[in-house]
């Protein structure tokens, strides 16, 4: 466009009304500075900026969700392209950065996608990056172990599983994987050792009765533990193990149950309601599935360690749906 175009017309207008425009410019600028001195304006701008920032994040998160959908559908090529772009835009550099959960998730999905496409080197490199990004997230080590195992990198898989158990010694799938690995390799001693370590590992479960938590943390190790629990309102009278109306998150057994009510002031009769105590013994068992127990049993028999097997059997009850074991974040469980 030349002098006769829109730009030319604007230029002529600016030259023709230079003084007016210059004054308007100065006035506008002064108003801008003055407006900024008004707290309400600063607050409104702050809100708008925050919204804009959140919107940009939200768009990235939506794309992460789409990529996840593709991973779950098995649309690996599309997922790989999307995840690579997402990783490039907000890479997982430092765990202190915002959206670290999602950044890690992108890496985990990317490692899985590479694996599904048969790209061993890229898959393992990505999962190693993931582990370095957030080294105390046991889930990353679980993924590392499973991918390394899938690509027959057995040593790397075992090291990853051992790291899982250092962070989360009650992670049942990893215990199962390690026990099976040792048993398959003919190392019955290590297989039994891993299981014994699992049974001994410090793990607790709350004991609840209705809305009340009787015991915040009952050791779960297959051994009997006495308990002496206060409740704000003793409104039931249990008189045996079967009558204990308690909920424990793993298989458990109860014995010697007693209810101790409070007293009525100045009277010899106990109060019919009000605070009191439950006392007794309880033992809770670590989650164990039938396949795992069968492997342990077979390993003990191979070692001719029948007393050891009996001791383990005393502390073990096989459950049908043992889940992932104890110790997970209750918020995630819900």
């Amino acid at each position, binding site marked *: 466009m030349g002098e006769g175009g829109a730009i030319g017309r604007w230029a002529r207008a600016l030259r023709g009304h*230079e*003084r007016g*425009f*210059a*004054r308007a410019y*100065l006035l506008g*600028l002064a108003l*801008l*500075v003055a407006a*900024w001195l008004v*707290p309400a304006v*600063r*607050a409104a*701008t*702050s809100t708008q*900026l925050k919204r804009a*920032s959140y919107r940009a994040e939200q768009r990235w998160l939506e794309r992460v969700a789409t990529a996840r959908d593709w991973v779950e559908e098995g649309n690996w090529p599309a997922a790989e392209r999307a995840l690579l772009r997402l990783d490039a835009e907000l890479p997982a550099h*430092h*765990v*202190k*950065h*915002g*959206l*670290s959960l999602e950044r890690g998730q992108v890496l985990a999905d990317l490692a899985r996608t590479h694996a599904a496409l048969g790209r061993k080197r890229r898959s393992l490199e990505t999962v190693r990056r993931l582990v370095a990004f*957030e*080294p*105390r*997230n*046991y*889930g990353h080590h679980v993924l590392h172990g499973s991918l390394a195992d899938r690509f027959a990198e057995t040593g790397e898989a075992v090291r990853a599983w051992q790291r899982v158990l250092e*962070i*989360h*010694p009650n992670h049942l799938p990893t215990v199962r994987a390690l026990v099976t690995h040792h048993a398959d390799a003919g190392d019955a001693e290590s297989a039994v050792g891993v299981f014994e370590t699992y049974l001994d590992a*410090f793990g*607790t479960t709350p004991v609840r009765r209705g809305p009340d938590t009787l*015991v*915040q*943390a*009952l*050791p779960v190790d297959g051994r009997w*533990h*006495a*308990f002496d*629990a*206060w409740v704000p309102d003793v409104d039931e009278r249990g008189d045996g193990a079967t009558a204990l109306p308690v909920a424990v998150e793993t298989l458990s057994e109860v014995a010697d149950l007693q209810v101790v009510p*409070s*007293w*009525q*002031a*100045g*009277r*010899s009769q*106990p*109060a019919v309601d009000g*605070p*009191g*105590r439950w006392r007794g013994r309880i033992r809770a068992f670590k989650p164990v599935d039938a396949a795992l127990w069968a492997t342990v049993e077979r390993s003990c028999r191979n070692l001719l360690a029948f007393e050891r097997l009996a001791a383990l059997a005393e502390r073990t009850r096989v459950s049908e749906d043992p889940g992932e074991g104890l*110790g*997970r*974040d209750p918020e995630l469980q819900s």
Partner: protein
Amino acid sequence: MSPEPSARLPRPRPPFFGLRRLRWRDLRWLDALVFSMPLWLVLLFLVAAPMARYLDARVFSDWWTRSESLARLADAQLHTLARLPEALSLSLRLDAEHPDPRWIRLHVDRDVWNEWQSEPLALHGDWVEATLLEGPRLHEVKLRKRGDTSVHWLTPKKSFTLKTGRGDLVRGHRRLSFSAKTPVEQVVVGQLARDWGLLAPETFLAPVFVNDRFYGVFRASELVDESLLRRAGRMPGDVFRGDTAERGENYRGLARNLWHSPALWERVARNDRPTRPAVSGLERLLGNLVRTDLSALDEREHLVDRGELARLLAFLLVVGDPYHMTNLHNQFWYEDPSSGRLHPIVWDIRLLALDAAPPHPLNSGFLSLLRDPRLFDEVMTELARRHADGSLLGGSEERLAAIEQGLEGPLRFEALRRGVIPDLTDPSQVGARLQANAATVADWIDDAQVSVAAGDADAAGWRILDVTVAGHAAVEWVGFEAADGPVAWVADADRNGRRDPSDPRGVASPGSETARLRLVPAVSAADWRLAPAPQHYRFFVRGEAAPRFVNALTGAPVAAGRTPPGTSLATAPGHHLWALPGHSPGAVAPPAPVTRLAGALELRESLRIPEGGRLEIAPGSVLRLGADVSILSRGRVVAQGTPEAPIRIEALDPKRPWGAFALLGEGASGSRFRHVEFRWGGGAELDSVEFKGMVDVHHAHDVVFDACRFRDNLRSDDALNAVHAQVDVRHSEFLNANADAIDFDYSRGEIRGNRFVAAGNDAIDLMTSSPRIVDNEIEGSGDKGVSIGEASAPWIEGNAIRGCVIGFEVKDRSAPWLVANRLEGNGVDLLQQVKNWRYGGGGRAKWIGPGLAPAGLEVAPDASSRLTLEEGAAAPAWVQRPLLAEMSFESRFEPLTPDQSWEVRGARTRLDRAGDELVLRARKGRAGARRRFSAPGPGLGLLEYSLAAGGRAELHWRQGEREHVVPLTPTKAPGQYAFATWPLAAGGEGRLTLLAEPAEGTGRGELRIQALRFLGEAP
């Protein structure tokens, strides 16, 4: 037709910026742009800068950045603009060369520093080289950004860790953390924790200058590691750290309550000894705390010190923050390998209003501990004791005054700062909050509440009397109000609600006191607040009388309220006091069990003597112990053999060592061993305590071994090991020790008249111990005759040391007095060196008596060590004089108080504290320094000094009208020191003046003072 050239020329434009006024009519674009530049700059400063900071903050997502808003940052920017002139003026007045030892002066390469400051995580995780200037000394140090959350990195003054090289400590520390977060209150709280005798890192307020520009006021603190333990006089051991809060993302997916999983903890100091217990103390403690049954309390006695926990909780209440040691973070626990107990380390405690709503719940560990009803009672007792003696706030007020006075400039500058910067906290606010909390504590001490419900009399005249205690303070039942006659009472100790024959009982006469029965409240953490809860006690009384109560903390009478009969009586989550063994009313402690051993006995299982018990071994007894079988006594042991009938303790099989003969705890104090022979023992781990000697004394005092024989121990480090103990060993023999014959760790006592032959390693090994070692004979040790390490200061006199590889080894800032000892045929007679860098120097031996060189003794030179000589045929008489007062010159971070100040004389004089010395330097003229002392009594002054060859110096002591002048002679070699003495008159004030002149031809002179002592009269 073209116009006239002159008509086409533009009319000359009059300037917009006239001399007198603006010509608005002639305003042009260029003028507007020039005119608007300042406005743009202002806008950039006010808008763009906070926006950039906001966007920087948005990169992170933690509690700090989530609370940040652009509006707040913009407000801060406006504030900064308004206070800019004041800030500039203040910053010009802040002088990096200030002599205050708290001021930290760093120099960093400018490019590196610009990068450090450029963005929050720039250089995060990298060590940056820097130089720290400390008076005339330069330290090569490294800096690294620190902190778990963005509060430490987003601020213009970023938190960092400073690290020196090994052996080059900065005022005693190798690593210091500098935190920007609420420094004033945290320093005051941290120092108060130390006043309370709690294990806490040394902390101080430090203005930091980088490249001679003021950077900010920080809370400097030593890190929790092995160095902290050693400085605090604790045996090196495991320190467990629990932090899953801001690092929580790293434990994603796991339940993060630290008290429910040992896997979430890490060790920041390690006990790597092969004999450490297989199960860590932390695991045992967590396992114990999840138990709710009564027997857990007994075991807990061996895991934690209840008195220390009570002190911790009481301290946390005074600072209003029993909450920040949460289930998720700020947990540091030290496991003492010599006792097996865990000790809390105070870390990151805030100063909050005690009566405000708690910001977090109490942690599960504290709640479990508070199930023991004695603990809260002891907490209140500790508060009452400190309230009564005025030590509730320790030295906080003085410290706050010192902060306000000494750091006024830096604090004023910091107060002007706003924006992405944590609050500094005004010292006056800190003082006010502490006072408010102290007032709340005082109210609690007076808060004793009791109410009573009386039932109807039964056929026998007995009435139920239900007493409920509910206030902060325990109450004591002291008898009955005026009654017609004696009142019989029964306490329902078994809490079955009935009057049983086994229940304790008594009769109270009218007006007189019964046995004082202490009734303590229960504890509740409802609404997250640590508060007392009602606890119920049932009695039966016969006779008409009302019970009388007093506040158990103050003794003030307490008026009892009335509980309506028939209402449900309170119970509480914790245990009832009367359920605890020995705590029911009238409970009589069982007689101390006495175990008597006599004759020839074989022990195939370890023997344990409980606290309060007693072990007696008859003369002539022979105890043969099976492999790894031990005797562990928490009670007193009396093993008194005779020359004719000695006691022998040995192995059943000489090839398979027995364990340890161990005394543990104060209950074993006063033990006596005479004519006892120990042999073939091998050390043991018992009750999760490491015993590394064949015979061990841990945490007991007044233990005597007299005329005993220790021989042929196997496997174990030591024949006799004392840890945190006071032990006398006299006239005994140590033969063929496996490694060290006697090993004293943090112990004292007397080692006199013993004979040591062929110890595998050292005859006597000292770690931070100060025994008297007198008249012993040491022959043929495989390593040292006497090894003096880790800041030990023993008195060693009249010993004969022959045929050892090394006679004396003095290391790691140990300062032994070596008086008139005889050394013959040793490889090296005196070796001084640095062995453990944590102590920051080599040996500091004082050799008194026969000369080293004339006697042909071998002395290994060492640049990090010092040797003070007082040579002569015999020791001078003053060595026997008692020490009245001692002044050393350790350079720490405490502000110099007026009474510590020396007055410098001479324009060219320089006086510095360098390391642990006072150094007077003269340049081209005479230098002088003087100060006043209160003379502690008649006696002798003793100066330990070093003066370079050719130097001239004098000491003047003026007391009253008399003045003594003592010429100080040059010492013989670098690192060599000498003593100078002068008489002290009784009482009064004296003035000490030190004068130094340059050595001829050099123009420089230097007088170094290591210590100044005042000795009493000769005994």
